[in-house]
Structures are given as structure tokens and as C-alpha cells.
């Protein structure tokens, strides 16, 4: 069955550093992959979408890569700030016409 894996443990980094979050998928060939941010008690908020024919996508301090050979997406936040602390969810999609979310990675940026 399709499986989405994200860093299971929380990621703690210092303010100003680059945070890198990993999303691996198996038994799946998504046409695109989305990243969302979720704060406690709130719904997910869309951040970036990258398609299978794109290697990299950027938006302000955010960068996403998509390696269909490795079956992996990396999500980078540069110059991280305490306000970036949240859970980040990856969601590959495509052939099955639905999004399959990973369990999320909790990012904590220390001042």
C-alpha cells in the first residue's frame, strides 16, 4: 500500500539556521506533491506545490525539491524564525485523485 514517511521526531533548530524536512514515499508515483503548515488547533495551510516535471520550487524563504528517482521531497526554510514553529505536512497526489498526507514533522525554532 502507499506509504508516506516524514521525520517522526521533532526537529529543533536555532533561529537563523536552515530547517530541512524530509518526505519519502513508497508504492506510489505522484504527479505532484504539496506541503502544508499546521498550527495547533488549526487546519492545514497550503505552502507550496511541486509537480513531477519540476526539480525545485521557491517561495520567499521556502524551497521544495522533488526527486522522483529517490521518491523523496525535501522542504527547506532558510533564515528560520520562531514564528516558523509548527507541524509541516507533505501530501503527494495524482493518480488516485486524492491527497495522502504524511504524519507531519514538528519543527521548533529556538530563539
Amino acid at each position: 500500500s502507499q506509504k508516506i514517511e516524514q521525520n517522526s521526531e521533532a526537529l529543533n533548530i536555532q533561529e537563523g539556521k536552515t530547517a530541512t524536512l524530509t518526505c519519502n514515499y513508497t508504492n506510489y508515483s505522484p504527479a505532484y506533491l504539496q506541503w502544508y503548515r499546521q498550527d495547533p488547533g488549526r487546519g492545514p495551510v497550503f505552502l507550496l506545490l511541486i509537480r513531477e516535471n519540476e526539480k525545485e520550487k521557491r517561495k520567499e524563504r521556502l524551497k521544495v525539491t522533488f526527486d522522483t528517482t529517490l521518491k523523496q521531497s525535501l522542504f527547506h526554510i532558510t533564515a528560520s524564525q520562531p514564528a516558523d514553529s509548527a507541524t509541516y505536512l507533505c501530501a503527494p497526489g495524482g493518480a488516485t485523485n486524492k491527497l495522502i498526507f504524511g504524519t507531519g514533522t514538528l519543527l521548533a525554532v529556538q530563539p
Partner: protein
Amino acid sequence: DAGVTQSPTHLIKTRGQHVTLRCSPISGHKSVSWYQQVLGQGPQFIFQYYEKEERGRGNFPDRFSARQFPNYSSELNVNALLLGDSALYLCASSSGPDFGQPQHFGDGTRLSIL
């Protein structure tokens, strides 16, 4: 513009009861999807409706049903509630049926089953 709104925000039910959750999509959005999120997990897809037709269904029992109204709002119904149905129920809207576009989520309904 208002975002996706869900009601109620919190709900407490007992086993065996049924529940109806409501969702109003962003104005102009015709696709509504429902997700269940249990603590510590990512959202799990339940249904998608587009133009009042069911377009997709996740791996949930028949106790779960939904519908979409002519104004594109939607209801999720769950019958014969079980303790395991306790979760955050999220609604997301988008302009089209394809999931290859951003999904706009509401803040969910927190359902607790006693």
C-alpha cells in the same frame, strides 16, 4: 473574503449516536473534501464532492456519508458513533475537482465520543 467555515467547532457525543458536521467553502469554490485527523497523525481523506457529485471516497465504513448542496456547502454525517471516531474533522475547498491545486482548509470540528 471569508475562508472555509466549519460548524460546530466542538462537539461531544456518546457511542451509538449520529452527528452532522457542516462546511461552507470559499465563495466560488465548487469542490469540497472531508478529512479525519486523529492526534499525532496527518489528515486522512474521507470524501470529495464536486458539483454535487461524489468524486472520491477514502477507506471509511458506510457509517460515513456526505452530500453537497446547490450552494456548494457540504455536510458530513456519521452514524453509530464509535470511540475511535473521536478526531478533528477537516473540510477543504478548491475551485476544481483536481487535487493538483491548493486545498483551502477550515479549522475543523473537534468531535469527542464518550
